[in-house]
C-alpha cells in the first residue's frame, strides 16, 4: 500500500512538472511580446532580456502616428466583429427555436441538412463569393463580412443542444395562453432563458470574426477599410528591417492583447463553452 502511495506521488510530480513546462511554453511568447513592446529599437537590437523597459507609450504613439492606419483598422475590426457576432447568436437561436419548438413537415430533413453543411469550409466557395461581391458592387463594404453571419451552422448546433435541454415547452404554452404572438414569445421568453449560451457563443463568434483573415483580404482593398489581420499581413510584406522593431511589437501587441484581456475575465465561461456544443456527452 505504501509503495502504491509513493508511486502516485512520483506520477503526480511528473504531471505537475510537465504541466508547468507546457504552461510556460504557452505563455512565453506573449510575455516576450509584452516585454519587447516596451523596448526601443536600439535596445531590441542589443540583445535578449525579459526585463521590461520604459518605451511602451513611445512605441504606441509612434505606431498611431505611423503609416499603417491601425486605429482605423481596430475600429473596422470592432464594427465587423460586434455586428456579425450579434447577428450570429440572434439568428442561430431563432433557427434553433424553429427546429426545437415546432413540429412541421421536413423538420428532420432540414436538421440533417444543416448538420451536413456544418463542415463545408468557407474557402471552397470563396471564388463564387468574390464574384458575388463584385456583382453586387460590395467591394470595400462590410456587408459581405457581416450579413453571412446569419447562417452559422456551428452556432446553431450549439444553440439547438442547449435549447433542447433548457427551454421548457410549458413556458412557451403559457405565453401563448396570455396571447403573446410567436415572435414576441421568442424574444421575451426564449431569448432570456438562452442568455448563458448566447454569452458563450457571442464570445466565440466575436473572436472568430476578429481573427478572420482569408475572406476579408479578398473583399477589402482600400486602406481605410482594412481590418487588423490585413494590416498585419501588410506589415509582414513591407521591408522588415527598415522598421522600428519597437513599433512592430507594439502593433502585434495591439492586435493580440485586447482578446487576452477579455479572455482572462471570461475564461471560466469560454473554457466551459468549448465542450458543451461540439461533443455528445
Amino acid at each position, binding site marked *: 500500500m505504501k509503495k502504491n502511495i509513493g508511486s502516485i506521488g512520483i506520477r503526480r510530480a511528473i504531471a505537475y512538472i510537465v504541466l508547468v513546462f507546457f504552461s510556460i511554453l504557452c505563455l512565453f511568447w506573449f510575455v516576450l511580446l509584452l516585454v519587447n513592446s516596451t523596448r526601443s529599437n536600439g535596445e531590441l537590437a542589443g540583445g535578449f532580456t525579459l526585463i521590461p523597459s520604459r518605451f511602451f507609450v513611445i512605441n504606441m504613439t509612434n505606431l498611431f502616428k505611423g503609416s499603417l492606419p491601425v486605429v482605423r483598422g481596430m475600429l473596422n475590426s470592432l464594427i465587423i466583429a460586434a455586428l456579425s457576432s450579434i447577428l450570429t447568436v440572434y439568428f442561430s437561436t431563432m433557427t434553433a427555436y424553429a427546429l426545437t419548438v415546432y413540429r412541421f413537415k421536413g423538420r428532420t430533413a432540414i436538421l440533417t441538412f444543416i448538420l451536413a453543411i456544418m463542415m463545408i469550409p468557407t474557402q471552397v*466557395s470563396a471564388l463564387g*463569393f468574390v464574384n458575388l461581391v463584385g456583382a453586387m458592387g460590395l467591394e470595400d463594404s462590410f456587408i459581405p463580412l457581416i450579413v453571412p453571419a446569419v447562417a452559422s451552422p456551428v452556432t446553431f448546433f450549439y444553440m439547438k443542444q442547449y435549447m433542447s435541454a433548457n427551454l421548457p415547452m410549458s413556458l412557451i404554452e403559457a405565453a401563448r395562453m396570455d396571447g403573446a404572438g410567436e415572435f414576441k414569445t421568442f424574444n421575451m421568453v426564449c431569448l432570456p432563458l438562452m442568455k448563458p449560451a448566447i454569452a458563450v457563443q457571442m464570445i466565440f463568434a466575436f473572436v472568430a470574426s*476578429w481573427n478572420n483573415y482569408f475572406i476579408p483580404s479578398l473583399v477589402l482593398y482600400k486602406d481605410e477599410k482594412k481590418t487588423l489581420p490585413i494590416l498585419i499581413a501588410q506589415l509582414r510584406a513591407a521591408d522588415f528591417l527598415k522598421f522600428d522593431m519597437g513599433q512592430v511589437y507594439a502593433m502585434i501587441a495591439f492586435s493580440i492583447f485586447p482578446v487576452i484581456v477579455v479572455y482572462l475575465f471570461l475564461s471560466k465561461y469560454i473554457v466551459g463553452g468549448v465542450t458543451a456544443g461540439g461533443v455528445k456527452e
Partner: protein
Amino acid sequence: MVKKEKSKIGRYNKWGYIFLIPFFAVFVVFQLIPLFNTIYNSFFENYMSGLTQIGPNFVGLGNYKELLSNGDLGVYFKNTMIMWVMGFIPQIFFSLLFAAWFTNPSLKIKGQRFFKTVIYLPNLIMAAAFSMLFFTLFSRVGPINKMLISFGLIAKPYQFLSNVWSTRALIAFMNFIMWFGNTTILLMAGMLGISKDLYEAAEVDGATPTQIFFRITLPLLKPIFVYVMITSLIGGLQMYDVPQILTDGTGDPMRSSMTLIMYLNRHLYSKNYGLAGALSVILLLITAVLSLIVFRAMDFKKETK
C-alpha cells in the same frame, strides 16, 4: 373540437418555417450561390495572360486535368499533410496525456482551472498576429537567435525560415500550441462521460493505470477521438493564416511550406478563375468524404430526434 385543436397546432407550426427564413435566405445567397458559381467556373478556361483576358471558354474537365497533371497540387497537398501530421501527433499525444491526468481521481491535480485557462489561451489568438510574432522572434536578428547565442547553444544566428524543415517545424509547432488546449478540453469531456463503475470494477480486478487507459478509456473514447481527428484533419486542409503570414505568401523555402489554400489564394489573386474553381471543388470533395466519416462515427442522427 378535434379538428379545431389540430388547426391551432398547424397555425403555430407554420411559424417554424417563418423562423427558418433568415438562415436559409442568407445561406442561399452567401453560401449556396457562391458554391454553385465556383463549381460552374471550374469548367471554364478563364484567366489573364498578361493584359489579355482569356475566356471564359467551356473546357469541360480541362482545368481538373491541368491541376492533376502539372504536379503542383500533389506537392502542396503533401506539404499540407506533412505539416498537419507534424503538429497533430504531439497534439493528440499531449492532449490525451493531459486529459487523462486531469480526469484521474487518484492523481488529484490541483490548479486545473489555471492550467486549462493557460493551455486554451493560444487558441483565441489571431493566427495572423501570432505568425507575425513568430516571424519577428525567429528572424535572423530576433530574440530567439540572440537568446540561443547568449546561452552558448549556437555560434552564429540560425536562419529558421531559410531551411525547409525548420520552417515546417515552426508552422507545425504553432498549430500545435494553438490547438492542443482545445483538444485536451474536448477529450476531457469525453473521459468524464465514461462511467466511474467501469474504472472501479477494473481496479478491483487489479488492473494497472496503463491497462485501464488502453483497455477502457481509449475504446470508449473512440467517437470523440474520431471527431477530434477528422475535424483537425479538415482544419489542417484549410491551413492558411500561419504559413501565409510567416512566409509572406511565398511558401518558401522553395515552396516547401505552400499549402493548398495558399495555392487557391494565389489563383484567386491572379484571377485564374478556372483553376481556382477546380481546386475548390477538389477540396470540397475531400472535405465531404471526411465529414461523412465524422457523421458516421458520431451518429449525429440519433441526436436530431
